[in-house]
């Protein structure tokens, strides 16, 4: 897992990962790249990350990948990422394509639902929490309700 301040250098990271595994006998390399789109007058996005829990979450996915003979890599930005820059890359290497195609889908879905990363819209220089696009982590609300 690789965390960077600001936008990701996508060609460099994809090449680094390719070079690191090109001789590992994987038949498939399937990356997903997330890029900031222009919508709702935002100038970009900004991210907070809580690294201790992100690391343990990612480790559990590395173990799942290993069980299927695959490996998973991930890069994410901290702080501000402007329009048409990229903030997220996930990639799976596996012996055959089917495992990697299915695994990248499962991984990115759980990433969206569980990874401790918070997104803010950048609007006129202000960070506005993307509340409506955020998902409560499974089991949330323990401290709410009636005593």
């Amino acid at each position, binding site marked *: 897992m690789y965390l960077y301040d600001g936008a990701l250098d996508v060609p460099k990271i994809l090449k680094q990962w390719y070079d690191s595994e090109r001789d590992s006998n994987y038949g498939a390399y399937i990356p997903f790249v*997330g890029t900031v789109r222009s919508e709702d007058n935002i100038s970009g996005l900004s*991210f*907070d*990350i*809580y690294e*201790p*829990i992100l690391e*343990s979450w990612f480790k559990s996915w590395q173990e799942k990948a290993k069980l299927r003979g695959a490996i998973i890599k991930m890069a*994410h930005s901290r702080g501000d990422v402007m329009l048409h820059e990229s*903030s*997220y890359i996930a990639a799976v290497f596996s012996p055959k394509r089917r495992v990697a195609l299915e695994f990248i889908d499962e991984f*990115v879905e759980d*990433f*969206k*639902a*569980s*990874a*401790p*990363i*918070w*997104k*803010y819209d950048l609007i006129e220089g202000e960070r506005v*929490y*993307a*509340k409506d*696009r*955020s*998902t*409560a*982590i*499974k*089991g*949330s*609300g*323990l*401290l*709410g*309700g009636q*005593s």
Partner: protein
Amino acid sequence: MIRVEFLGPIQKAPLELDIDNLNQLRSILQKDEELQEWLQNSAVALNDTLVSSLDVALKDGDKVSLLPPVCGG
């Protein structure tokens, strides 16, 4: 003392509390009007591991974190 941290968009400074369990923490935090919505939608971690029950004893030096709804990518 137990350190309580509020992550991401919860704009609140960490607390140092003299408590023994998560039920006591719930009672204390529920008195804070500004936290009401966050308490409903946040996950809770003890020493960086998510917990699924309030039946957890706390000991001196423990860290409790509140994790509001997430959106990576």
